[in-house]
């Protein structure tokens, strides 16, 4: 059960449906609008290009151009003394606001449908990869937990996963646990952390697309930027006081920002639902809890 993931990160790309990327090495972009048919079928995909430099995201090009040309404008204003005509001032104001707008463009473009794939989650430094499960669980649940944590780490842009069901924990991936402690102690430490934050009482899912460094909880590895928590909620017995019972939660952390799309969250909820099904199954059968 202590099999560590060899390569837990698979970059998930949302496929771009229309057009193919063309590769060009030169900067010159020519809009060949004449070889298209009518206006509606304008093939603009010819404008898309890549320099082929690894790690350089071409969608950020407007930002670099905005910074570069904006600073050239300022240089032009100050470096060449002499009177600055009102006409030049107008142009410069226009230019600087355009530069500001260009800088903001990649940020806006990130939210468009079918936009660029998310950043890949990077491995946190200084944190260890661990896979620990509470001992007090049945074999069926053990298998399900192992499978679910594996799938969640592979299929979503995550670095760490924690599943808690009725107090029993399973954690996998990178966690900021104290070094050199035994597995039981890690679990106890995590339980205390969870108690402190009060995650077990969550009634709604939580999504933090961008956490600031100082807001990251102690147990998460450094560099965590996105966090998603999905509680497992079921309808309780009709004669119970509360309408809903919280059976646990699934927590996923990633070092990339905006790591979880709506579809990712839906799938994570589906996995959480699987454990709910198990819980209710055991409830109805044994009435006690998970049999050992």
């Amino acid at each position, binding site marked *: 059960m202590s099999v560590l993931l060899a390569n837990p990160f*698979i970059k998930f*790309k*949302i496929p*771009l449906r*229309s057009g193919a990327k063309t590769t060009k090495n030169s900067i010159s972009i020519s*809009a060949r609008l004449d070889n298209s048919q009518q206006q509606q079928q304008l*093939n*603009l*995909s010819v*404008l*898309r290009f890549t320099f082929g430099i690894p790690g350089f995201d071409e969608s950020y090009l*407007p930002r670099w*151009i*905005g910074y570069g*040309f904006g600073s050239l*404008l300022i240089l*032009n*204003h100050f470096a060449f003394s002499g009177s600055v005509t*009102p*006409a*030049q001032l*107008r142009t410069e104001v*226009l230019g600087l606001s*355009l530069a500001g*707008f*260009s800088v903001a*463009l990649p*940020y*806006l*473009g990130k*939210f*468009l449908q*079918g936009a660029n794939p998310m950043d890949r989650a990077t491995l946190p430094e200084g944190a260890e990869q661990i896979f620990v499960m509470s001992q007090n669980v049945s074999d*069926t649940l053990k*298998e399900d937990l192992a499978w679910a944590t594996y799938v969640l780490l*592979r*299929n979503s842009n995550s670095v760490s996963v924690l599943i808690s069901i009725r107090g029993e924990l399973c954690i996998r991936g990178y966690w900021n646990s104290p070094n050199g402690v035994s597995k039981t102690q890690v679990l106890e430490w995590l339980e205390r952390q969870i*108690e402190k*934050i*009060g*995650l077990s009482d969550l009634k*709604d*899912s*939580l999504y933090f*697309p961008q956490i600031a460094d100082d*807001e990251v909880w102690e147990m998460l590895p450094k560099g965590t930027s996105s966090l998603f928590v999905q509680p497992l909620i079921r*309808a309780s017995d009709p004669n119970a006081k*509360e309408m809903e019972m919280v059976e646990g939660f699934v927590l996923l952390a990633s070092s990339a920002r905006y790591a979880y799309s*709506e*579809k*990712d*969250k*839906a*799938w994570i909820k589906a996995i959480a*639902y*699987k454990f709910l*099904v*198990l819980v209710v199954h055991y409830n*109805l*059968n044994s009435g006690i809890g998970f049999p050992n």
Partner: protein
Amino acid sequence: MEAGSILNSIIPWNPKRSLCRKPSNFPRFVRASSSPQSQEQKRGYRGPKPTRDWVADWVRNNDDAVRSLPIYVGGASLLAVLFNRTVSGIAPVADASSSQSRADLLTLSLAVTNILTGLVWLSIRPKSISVVNPEGVECRNICSRLPDLVVSELLWAWESLSAVTCCRSLVVIYDSICILQIGMAAESRNDGEAVTVDASKLMQGSVYQGVMRSGAQSYLANLLLYPGRSELPFLPSNTQAVILQPLGDKGIAIIGGDTIRGFTTSDQSWIAFIGEKLDATLSKYANAVSLVMQDGI
């Protein structure tokens, strides 16, 4: 105990519910929760997020407008620069000799960058494909002698697929029998009931053989173009896309969707993993399944 009651006692699952709750809901959550823990204070403290979400929501709701926005901004700036030059009485000559001309050139380049970015955004707009409602009848046939745990796992798989993806029909065949047929199915001409799955006939067909030989998932993104669709008569006739997922080497899951290319790459990999899990569960309970086979004969 009826296996269906397991899922009935769980809150009906709607994936649109409670996704991406904004932290602005926290105060409401604080009042409703009976827990005295300090979580509310700690979490209510993450105030600044809603502003970011507002931009994201605005962009998502006005997708088309935002895509053309840079074009309009760039075009207007271009005209403004030229207008400025003519109004100020400067000759419209593109040289870099004077400060004014340099500033003009830089602004023009920025305007052109914006126009081109807008055109690129327009080019990557995903084509919206409409949903085609499957014609047929609803059915829910589950092999009755399977253990409860297996049935609940199969039903979980169906609930997840139908809620998250465009799946509208699911058929699972294992050990040469059809253990699950759920969702929309083709209507049989005789009695208006769902067409039953002839597992042995399916297993002799090329579709099944091909998938089993490769052992990998097969995604028929546009079923109408695929000649082997005649081997899947139990699916509604206007099923748009089908995923054939082998379950180990003893079974297959056939997942029918209502949109052409409706299953994304993410869906495909999730379905592959779910297929592996179903195979593991089913092979563990293979004794029960083979018992059914004997009874069936």
